[in-house]
């Protein structure tokens, strides 16, 4: 490189111009406060413990499930549906669905918890199974930083999970 070149390659890539660590921390702080102080909704998260649950070796199902100690999590809970539905050849049934928006950083960094399909949450005394989840948004497009984990949950029948 010639000595008269006034432009130098920096050793490290520069931080994003407007959204760096400080800004991300601010976003986390605001969201923590919003979810815990303003929204105030909380769920109990029951991670299924595959090490101690006696899953059927062929069918991969367990009538009796064991779980790790449940974790209280503040989250934004979206009430999706609570109503009757007609189960074909069975009759009238009810379906309850919620979508739980977990704060990603609060969950993974502070509570060391990771959302997995098949785990259970309790909300309002009802148990729900997480049927799918997604991380729909990134913080200003930064690939390693998600805003939330959005989990769709349907009510778990007592035969599937009863928290005991």
């Amino acid at each position, binding site marked *: 490189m010639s000595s008269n070149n006034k432009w130098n390659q920096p050793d490290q890539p520069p931080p994003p111009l407007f959204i760096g660590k400080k800004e991300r921390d601010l976003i986390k702080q605001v969201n923590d406060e919003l979810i815990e102080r303003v929204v105030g909704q909380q769920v109990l998260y029951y991670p299924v413990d595959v090490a101690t*649950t006696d899953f059927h070796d062929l*069918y991969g199902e367990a009538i009796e*499930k064991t779980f790790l100690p449940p974790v209280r999590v503040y989250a934004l809970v979206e009430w999706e549906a609570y109503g009757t539905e007609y189960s074909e050849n069975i009759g009238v049934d009810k379906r309850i669905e919620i979508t739980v928006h977990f704060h990603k950083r609060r969950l993974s960094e502070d509570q060391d918890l990771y959302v*997995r*399909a098949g*785990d259970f949450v309790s909300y309002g005394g009802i148990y729900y199974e997480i049927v799918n989840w997604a991380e729909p948004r990134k913080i200003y497009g930064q690939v390693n930083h998600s805003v939330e984990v959005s989990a769709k949950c349907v009510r778990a029948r007592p035969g599937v999970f009863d928290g005991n």
Partner: protein
Amino acid sequence: MAIKETKEIMPSTLETIDRAFYDWVNKTLDISATTNRGWNKVPLIWVSAERSFQIKEDKNLRDEFGVLKLPLITISRNSIVKDPAKKGAVQANVFRQNDPKGGTISFSRRINQSKTADFANADANKTTPNFGVQGPLAGQVNFPFNNKKVVYETLTIPLPTYVNVTYSVTLRGEYFQQINEMLTPFIVKTGQINGFTLTADGHKFEGFLPQDFAQNNNVANLGDDERVFETKIDIRILGYLMGALKNDEQPKMTVRESAVEVRIPREHVIFGDIPTTISGAFYRE
């Protein structure tokens, strides 16, 4: 003392048929395929597992983002048909014994040594002939003679109920080569015929491969989708069920003893056979 051979006999249930088929694909065919990580055994998945089991049980099935690694073979049970026209070795229907013991088909038979010896000794010990009494009338136990009163223990089991269970095996890969490698064992394993046998828990079932192996590839109309190669094979297994297990009032296996002597008891009280005045006096049964 006679040595009794012990042999555990497992019931044949739907799970037994499922397991036989799973083991046939997993162990008998034992399919591997070429991947960018080498020549590896293709994972076999039973489709109906719970979500938590799918996600957490075997981390090698997925990458660090939770995406399934291909190639992959899945098995799902599609239908169960009880077709009277498609039965196995036991063709006729034989009703069960209508008692708590049940049982239909004799499975094995052995001599009950103890009870046979009791009858033989009872006859050998007699000194005066009676109706139905055989033996030498030697008045001596263990006296050898040709004993006709042999007590047999017969083991009976419920009638096998034949069912045709259809499974869908789905082969999914990222390359045509992988599909070729996975599909070929299904075609060539049975030779020129399409039938095979499979076993589980000591039971033997028959399987029938289809003539068509449906290809579900999207390469002809790829569009925006990822390139996926899929082949579906519907395989019919002729299995049988024996008893309804816990829902059955009768046991899965019954032991019955043969009758060697007919006795007609008398009513002792009415006829005054039991001596009431002499303690411990003999009376004829």
